């Protein structure tokens, strides 16, 4: 007789538990009833059609996608440059710069959000795209720096030297040798930044205005007043979109490696 694996059972239970929210949201978005129910009653696309009648969700979805894309590109660019300097050159103060780059992870989002609101109000960019972009870049850069630094720690600089010796231009060496070797780290930094921005609520909460609202916040606000299957259908859209990026991240870098890096922070 096979012995029952207690650890396996508990693990299965926990895995069901952490995935339960998605297991109930997606089915209940297809309900034919006029109210939120699980298990759903009947089948219909009506709550998905309803999204199209709600400009606040459509507009905020576009806004979130735009914000996350620009955040990902700029944060990856800035973070990669800084990581290059930290890895390639030994200089005085590099320890301090390194600590500073990672510092936004050690401070609660609550404080980052409030302080950004105070400062942005004073310089007049509170509630604008620019304000949200700067704040989202700030919370994404630490991840990029960590990922690229890890990528660079195993980087063989003799390959660059070989390129120079063969007479290649520094830019050519960078483009043809350095960049391709670091591509997994840079690409995953970019995807992770995208997800960080796309999912964020805690910092955005302080920085949005009625016409510059991100999707998670539109859902957050709607949820506090009404709980109907519309929240389920719009959430399912977000789950699906996030899932695409999560699978991509798993393929490019591996989630385990990624989280091993940031398990000390939030």
């Amino acid at each position, binding site marked *: 007789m096979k012995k029952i694996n*207690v*650890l*396996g059972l*508990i*693990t299965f239970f*926990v*895995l069901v*538990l*952490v*995935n*339960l*929210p*998605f297991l*109930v*949201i997606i089915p*209940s978005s297809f309900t034919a009833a006029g109210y*939120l*129910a*699980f*298990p759903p009653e009947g089948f219909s696309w009506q709550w998905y059609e309803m999204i199209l009648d709600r400009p606040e969700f459509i507009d905020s979805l576009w806004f979130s996608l735009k914000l996350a894309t620009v955040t990902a590109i700029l944060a990856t*660019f800035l*973070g990669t*440059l*800084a990581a290059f*300097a930290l890895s390639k050159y030994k*200089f005085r103060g590099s320890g301090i710069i390194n600590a500073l780059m990672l510092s936004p992870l050690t*401070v*609660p*989002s*609550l*404080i*980052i959000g*409030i*302080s*950004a609101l*105070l400062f942005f109000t004073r310089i007049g960019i509170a509630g604008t795209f620019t304000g949200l972009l*700067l*704040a989202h870049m*700030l919370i994404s850069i630490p991840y990029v720096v960590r990922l690229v630094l890890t990528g660079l720690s195993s980087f063989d600089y003799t390959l660059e030297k070989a390129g120079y010796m063969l007479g290649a231009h520094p830019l050519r060496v960078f483009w043809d040798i350095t960049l391709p070797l670091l591509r997994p780290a840079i690409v995953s930094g970019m995807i992770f930044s995208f*997800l960080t921005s*796309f*999912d*964020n*609520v*805690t910092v955005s*909460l302080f920085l949005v205005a009625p016409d510059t609202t991100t999707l*998670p916040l539109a*859902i*957050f606000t709607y*949820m506090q007043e009404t*709980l109907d299957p519309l929240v389920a259908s719009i*959430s399912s859209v977000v*789950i699906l979109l996030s899932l695409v990026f*999560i699978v991509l991240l*798993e393929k490019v870098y591996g*989630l385990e490696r990624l989280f*091993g890096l940031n*398990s*000390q922070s*939030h």
Partner: protein
Amino acid sequence: MSKRLSVTLLTAPAMILLLGVFILPMLMMLMLSFQDENQAFSLHNYSLFVQDPYYLEILWRTIRVSLWTVLASLLLGFPVAMYMAQATGKMRGIVTMLILAPHLISVVIRNFGWVVVLGEKGWINETLISLGLIDQPLRLLYNELGIVIGLTDSFIAYMVLAIATSLYAIDPSLNKAASILGASRMRTFFSVTLPLCLPGIIAGTTLVFSLSMSAFVTPALMGGTSVKVLPVIAYEQIMATLNWPLGAALAFLLLGSTILLVTLYTKLIETKRYKEVFAS
């Protein structure tokens, strides 16, 4: 190009962002928290916290909810980490993926899923009523229990990872040695595995505690309006009451108490470990 110039050019953009959007605003916030209505220096916002039992009660609730969250994630997360450490390549990968992926989907959405499950007309209550086990719906949401469930779901991944990482590092031959020397599996666990993964447990518990203390989306959505924690109060002072100095002070008090508690905890454990080492 000189080394100095390269370093400056490469780090400057990120450094400007960090100093301008993070360090400077935080200093401004700190200064603001020491201001009264007339913008004069005052400790009023901080002394209010000690004088008014309302705030102390809320701080105590925040700590209580966080401690329950730590306990729940430890009890549920430890077996998962053990399982991951014993599992072979493919299975370990699947478990890792299933525990981490939810973490990359917005907390608002995960909380909404829990509302569907735990609500008054939610899945659990409807099922129990239709089975005739209860007459009145159970109150699983909009109380401290709801917050603890939501926070545990949010942060258990950190606990699992911290413990699993320390378990991976244990040399398997140690377990073998213990059993060769005649130790039972129970004994091996308590004398070999547990002490060796203690750093992982400490890291996991402190991390989950700190995250729970400053969480406010889950408490706002799953705790409702009657059960408030300190981050929610700070948020309301900033966004609703518009008393920014008080809101800023509350946020710093929260951070201060979290750091204090975490330091005490790690000190306590370290001392105990030294005693164990020198006593034996």
